[in-house]
């Protein structure tokens, strides 16, 4: 045994040396073939992602003069974003609404994911398809359906009046930040369920048995094993919802009203009615950077928390 390893060790450097040159060429050849096959996709994605983002940054440094761009580089737009209270207020509101929506979605979806992971034993696939199916139907229509429900003459108001419970329609339902949060929570729930479900499904069941055998009750077992081990899925779910909803434009327009307008509305206005493209570009970048910062801070904090409790 020791003899063998000794001979192995003595032959090893030479063999990797002679074979290394050949295999590294092969490796390079193989990698080259791989990248060749990947190149059409990569090229399209570079044209579609890197180039536009680069130009977006460039344009944010220009200024609009009437219908012309002043192409001298300046940070004026960014100073504008930092100084004008409306931009900061809308940015803060976008973050709050999306954060609230991410929180609500995760809290509502967790028990559901838990149910399918631990209490459904047959036809799991059917449950998963049932939970994700609405996600594939028209987003616009799903958002619009909440306007039907919460509207002034909507399902809730006309229903309550019909039952004689109220005389006047409840006005706070539609056109409020709350309406936006409810609608986004409904529209994005499928995105939360899947990552949480996967992280729960991966938990080794024998750990739970061990905890039970060692005298942990169901509640203790949940908080000591199941919940900490599912945290990666919870964090992923929160981010998957937080990031795209910050940029949502349909929901605040249809259901937000003046108090529920988000930064995305303002960005799209810069490219439409207001016609100040460089300002719109600066706002888009401000939005993207803020989202990235919040996401990074969130990930760091939740990592710390995960380490603490596992």
């Amino acid at each position, binding site marked *: 045994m020791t003899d063998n390893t000794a001979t192995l060790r003595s032959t090893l450097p030479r063999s990797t040396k002679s074979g290394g040159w050949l295999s590294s060429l092969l*490796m390079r050849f*193989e*990698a080259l*073939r*791989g990248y060749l*096959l*990947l190149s*059409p*996709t*990569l090229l*399209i*994605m570079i044209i*579609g*992602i890197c*180039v*536009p*983002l680069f*130009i*977006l940054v460039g*344009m944010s440094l220009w200024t609009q003069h009437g219908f012309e761009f002043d192409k001298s580089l300046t940070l004026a737009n960014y100073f504008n974003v930092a100084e004008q209270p409306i931009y900061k207020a809308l940015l803060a509101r976008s973050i709050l609404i999306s954060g609230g929506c991410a929180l609500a979605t995760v809290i*509502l*979806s967790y028990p559901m994911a838990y*149910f*399918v992971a631990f*209490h459904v034993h047959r036809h*799991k*696939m059917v449950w*998963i398809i*049932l*939970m994700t*199916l*609405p996600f*594939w*139907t*028209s*987003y*616009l*229509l799903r958002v*619009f*359906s*909440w306007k039907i*429900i919460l509207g002034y003459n909507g*399902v809730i108001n006309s229903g309550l009046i019909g039952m004689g419970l109220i005389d006047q329609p409840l006005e706070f339902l539609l056109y409020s930040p709350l309406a936006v949060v409810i609608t986004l929570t*409904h529209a994005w*729930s499928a995105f939360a369920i899947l990552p949480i479900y996967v992280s729960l*499904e991966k938990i080794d*069941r024998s750990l*739970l048995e061990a905890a*039970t055998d060692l005298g942990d009750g169901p509640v203790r077992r949940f908080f000591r094993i199941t919940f900490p081990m599912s945290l990666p899925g919870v964090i992923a779910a929160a981010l998957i919802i937080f990031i795209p909803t910050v*940029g*949502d*434009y*349909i929901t605040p327009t249809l259901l937000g009203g003046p108090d529920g307008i988000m930064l995305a509305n303002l*960005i*799209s206005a810069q*490219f439409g009615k207001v016609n100040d493209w460089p300002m719109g*570009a600066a706002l*888009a970048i401000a*939005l*993207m950077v803020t989202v990235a910062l919040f996401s990074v801070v969130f990930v760091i904090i939740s990592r710390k928390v995960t380490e603490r409790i596992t």
Partner: protein
Amino acid sequence: MSMSYINRPNRPLHVYALLYLAFLYVPVLFLPLFSFNDSIFIAFPLKEFTFKWYEVMFNNEPMLAALANSVKVGVVTSIVATFLGIFAAKAVTRYRMPGRGPVVAFIMLPLVIPGIIFGVSLLILLSELGVRLSLYTVTLGHIIVCVPFAMVTMIPRFEGFDASIEEASSDLGENMWWTFWRVTFPVVFPGIIASFLLCFTISFDEFIIAFFLSGTEPTLPIYMWSQLRFPDKLPGVLALGSIILMVSFVVVFAAHWIRNRGMPYKRVGGV
């Protein structure tokens, strides 16, 4: 079922699950409900049952044109995105490549960047290049968004089959092209169909990028958006929406079914 003492049936949780499904489905089901209601107002109590909004819809030329536009964009998007997805999935599963992780992460970027950022930045790029906005520009935007989905759908297919079958084929004298068509293609075919259907659904439904990149010809979501402002147009939109809901339910169910057929593991999670 040695686990059963841990996973005792939990009645409150079961009730919660059913309530949750209701929360998911009931709002959506109001669309078909009111599309059969003989009243221009979308409110309770319901009036007579009617098919007239469906008649109105089928006689609405601009709406049908928008539908045709969306189908065109969706078909081209899903074909191109699926092909790009096949190339990418084959490359990252079959070859040892340095930098594989970052490359895959880069292709997945559209999943984590808000759509409005994409729409706006592509709009700026196209206008700086002097490209006129049209259905082609919408298609370009949709391809970029769909490629990650196509790749994610195709990767398990390539991971699931033995590369030595391909090697055997080339050892027996088939060139790369014929190996692909006669060996690889039939094996990954269900993945291709699933990817095609998912990409079509995404493109067909996409609003924000189309909002910034469409010219004078609207796609269906853009057309519906323009109609939502007019209360008298709403029932017609509801009728159309109900049909779209039904078709997309069927398509997505078919995609799931096809994708899971003949996979090495039958159930998600493999338990």
